[in-house]
């Protein structure tokens, strides 16, 4: 599998990396900064007095993870029920109630959601 995808920078803006908010504004006004970041991302950040320490990494990670969870919710909310049979129950805090029909020969066991009576 190989799928080439062009990143839309506007979409990435929803990741609210507060540690680099000022830098993001600076990039828009200073094209050479963007080039420097492309050439050596870490050095360019440090040149802008951004200290890449554990606290920085953790903060960025937390913000990244939060956005992923938000994206999942947004996307799943937009999908029809047929495409989120498990997620729907989990998001409501309910256990998955499955009926499993066993097929010993093929080992393809058929699972269906047991509807609440």
């Amino acid at each position, binding site marked *: *599998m190989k*799928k080439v995808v062009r990143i839309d920078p506007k979409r990435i803006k929803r990741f609210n990396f507060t540690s680099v908010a000022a830098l993001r504004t600076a990039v828009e006004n200073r094209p050479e900064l963007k080039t420097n970041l492309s050439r050596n991302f870490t050095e360019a950040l440090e040149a802008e007095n951004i200290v890449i320490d554990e606290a920085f990494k953790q903060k960025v990670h937390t913000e990244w993870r939060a956005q992923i969870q938000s994206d999942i919710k947004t996307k799943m909310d937009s999908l029809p029920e047929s495409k989120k049979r498990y997620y729907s129950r989990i998001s409501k805090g309910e256990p*998955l109630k499955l009926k499993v029909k*066993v097929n010993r020969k093929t*080992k393809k066991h058929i699972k269906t959601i047991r509807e609440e009576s």
Partner: protein
Amino acid sequence: METGGYDVVVEVNETLLNDFFKLAYCMGQFPEFSGVYTLPIDDVPESLEEFMDIGYEVSIAEEPSIDFTSAHNIVMNARGQCKFTVLGSIEFELEVEFTIGVNPSFNQSTRQFRVEFVEASIDDVELNDTLHLPNNVITKLNEILAIAMDEYLTEEITTIQLSPVIFSTDLPMMPPGSANQLTVGMGNIKVLSSQVVAAAINLLGYTGGNINAVTDFTSGNHIGLGVNEGAMHRVYDFWWQRTTWPKSVTETGDHDFDPPDFVDFIDELVDWVAAALTLGLVDVDVDIDRVWANYGATLNFSKFEFDLKPGNKVEISGSVTADIYLRVYTQITTTTELFWGLWEVDEDTSTVKLFDLSISGLRVDIETAEGKVYIDDDNQLAVDVTELDLNIPLNWDIPEFLLNYVIDWVVDSIVDNLPPIVLFPAMITQAIPDSTVTVEASFNKLVIDEPEALIAANIEASGMDSYAPYVANMNLDSMEVHKRDCEWAHRIAYRHKKYYCNLEEALSSGFDGCAYCLPQHHTR
């Protein structure tokens, strides 16, 4: 309840007992028996004492048969041959028909039906009386014969095993040692009808049951075996406590997702990766090479509860405790060198870990499951689980394509690793102890009534030929019968060989005795 409250009831048909009598006869379990009877006459001069001894040799001329009497007793009919030697060298030969009282019993250690001979009585005697013996002598010989045959059948032979091993005491996947075998206790025995005798047995120290409540469930088959549900629970509990079957199983795997799997999330996946790489500061083209997951689960199974239902069904419940992990990765290539090693970005493989989830002690309830009781390839009474209702309180907030995969995998792992439910050990084991004879059981009936399982089977033995003392040549140019060790017997083509346990049967089938090994029966 046809098993009368006993753990196990074994029923055997008269036909099978007679088949095994034939086997016993063929295997030489009725050997020739000889002895000396001394006439009880007082004050015999020393020089005449040797003439007071009457020597006898007794043998069974053909395989005995067994009969169930109308009074629900069992008798064995046998035709014996007896040779007397009197006055030192004078020989008399008699053929005699006996009826022997038989006590059926069940051998707890071999789990075979057997009969014990208790009393022999003479029905008819044919004497080759070339010497025209006076009646009082014949009467005396009859008395001696009765004593000899009684001693032969009640002291020399005493018991004959008359069935295959009805069930094993070995359960599957158990550690070695007698402490891990089922213990068998005798309950009672009863002749149920003019054809069937039943032995009631208890397991693992249980004492209970009423022999008068036991009924015939053989349905015309050679053997019936009834197992009470209480016994099944005891056997299963015993097995579960001791089995080497892994109650805890760890499974791992990995899976590459194809784009159709995550089509709904393709933009999000790209964004998540790009955000991790650039913090939104740099434009980049990304090639998504792979999206895959590593996952694993340790499943700890608890002992199931089960309940027999009509229609060979069983209801099961229980639970599985699971420790599960899931790691999801995306491997990418970019046109710019952006890998800066901030977090979860592997510069060498260009891999971003998107999810790293784990949960411990997740209790998956098997709310109810349905199974079918069946006899497996090893003749064990087992349960095949056909349907389960599972409750899985997994709370992972991840895209549906990942949930779909991991839940399906966990459920498959649970189902495929379900410990067996062992209800009863192997029934009618193939080997006959102390012989090369084997039996094949055709199970013709398995009926689950709520409190018990009733099984009936026919038995076919093979390998008896290796014990037959006579072999006939069916080649129409020969049609002779030989002793097994006759050199001419070895020259018979395999396809022309027919084995006989009984010479008279071979002769009456049209075979002539071999001139070398059976000259007394050679007539051509």
